[in-house]
């Protein structure tokens, strides 16, 4: 029986005259946990407020803290927790890759403007090296899973990912077609036109970026769905449990490197962040970089949760 379905968390109970807001927080718990304890916890919250007394912030904080703890603790099966943690890191890395793409586009011309800014060069080099290393780590993790994923697909696992895989394939075809079309268009434009002075090209580029991000997320979704059911050997799971925190740390290092590079370039030549702005005092708070920085911080948080989950489960493998 679905706990959520039967309990109807957060809805008004007939006769009680009390809307138990905190029970909506039960949705934050892992699904398996809710199935087992959701109804009982829901009943307890109702019992505690049977007199109509409103639930306080303390109870909400307690539920939030407890739900986060259960998310980190995961289920009983450590291999499932490692796979879940690694999937979360993969999602975070996909999000980070989108942010990285934005930074790559924004940082196309800064080296011409600031050839001698050593701190910015060091930060940018660190960013590129760590990005390559983390991508290699992700590739190793995916490659190690491929034999088990192939076995799962052969055992009728294809049905579980069919819709997601077809969507990912369609998006990939769209990205390839879009890339070819944009490249052909770019050859007809001046350098200034390619740097955002041609409104139509800029809009098409943003649309292409959105399509590429959707494609990346679609493949991450396929991988996460496979990871939920795939049966990996214990040594492979141990490698995944090691890779997850390594990739999370790499993402944190890249975020610091990006912020350092941004700060140095913003202080010395803010115009370089906007493709050679002609304004007297261009703002260093470029919206694209603000978005990229926010996405990076968010991705680091998600990766930290996944890495912690995988690392905690590793000891129990």
């Amino acid at each position: 029986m679905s706990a959520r379905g039967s309990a109807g968390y957060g809805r008004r109970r007939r006769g009680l005259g009390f809307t138990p807001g905190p029970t909506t927080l039960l949705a934050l718990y892992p699904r398996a946990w809710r199935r087992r304890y959701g109804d009982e916890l829901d009943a307890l919250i109702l019992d505690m407020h049977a007199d109509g007394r409103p639930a306080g912030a303390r109870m909400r904080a307690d539920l939030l803290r407890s739900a986060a703890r259960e998310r980190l603790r995961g289920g009983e099966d450590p291999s499932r927790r490692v796979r879940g943690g690694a999937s979360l890191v993969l999602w975070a890395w996909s999000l980070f890759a989108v942010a990285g793409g934005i930074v790559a586009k924004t940082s196309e011309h800064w080296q011409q403007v600031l050839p001698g800014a050593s701190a910015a060069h060091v930060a940018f080099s660190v960013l590129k090296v760590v990005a390559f290393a983390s991508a290699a780590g992700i590739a190793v993790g995916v490659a190690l899973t491929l034999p088990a994923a192939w076995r799962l697909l052969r055992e009728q696992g294809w049905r579980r990912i069919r819709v997601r895989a077809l969507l990912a394939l369609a998006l990939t075809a769209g990205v390839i077609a879009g890339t070819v079309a944009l490249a052909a268009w770019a050859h007809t434009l001046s350098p200034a036109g390619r740097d955002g002075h041609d409104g139509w090209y800029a809009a098409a580029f943003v649309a292409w970026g959105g399509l590429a991000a959707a494609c990346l997320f679609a493949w991450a979704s396929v991988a996460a769905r496979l990871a939920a059911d795939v049966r990996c050997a214990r040594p492979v799971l141990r490698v995944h449990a090691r890779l997850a925190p390594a990739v999370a740390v790499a993402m944190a290092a890249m975020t610091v490197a990006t912020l350092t590079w941004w700060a140095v370039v913003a202080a010395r030549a803010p115009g370089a962040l906007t493709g050679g702005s002609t304004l007297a005092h261009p703002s260093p708070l470029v919206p694209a970089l603000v978005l990229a920085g926010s996405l990076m911080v968010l991705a680091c948080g998600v990766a930290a949760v996944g890495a912690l989950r995988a690392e905690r489960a590793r000891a129990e493998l």
Partner: protein
Amino acid sequence: MPATKTRHNDPTLLILTSLASGEKHGYALLQDIERFAGVTLGPGTLYGAIARLEDRGLIEPVGEAGRRRPYRLTGAGATELEDALAELRTITDEGGRRLAARSSALAGGLA
């Protein structure tokens, strides 16, 4: 799975102590713990501890699944409670001895 040792400040010890007097459901546990320990556990904390105790086989649900399902202590749970209380007794005994020695020393210094 490596079991986490029960500590005297852990809600799990309060739950084990409460269940030592008989089976109880969530709300009865909260009321009982508040009565004998003066501690008000949040509902999330209570069920987090219940889940951990059940995982470790220290408590078990009684009867059919339901919204107010009672729990009871298992044999392993009773042993765990005895161990935790013995550990606690060691600390309280040692603390008492040291406080008594301190009082004696202070009294000697004043005399």
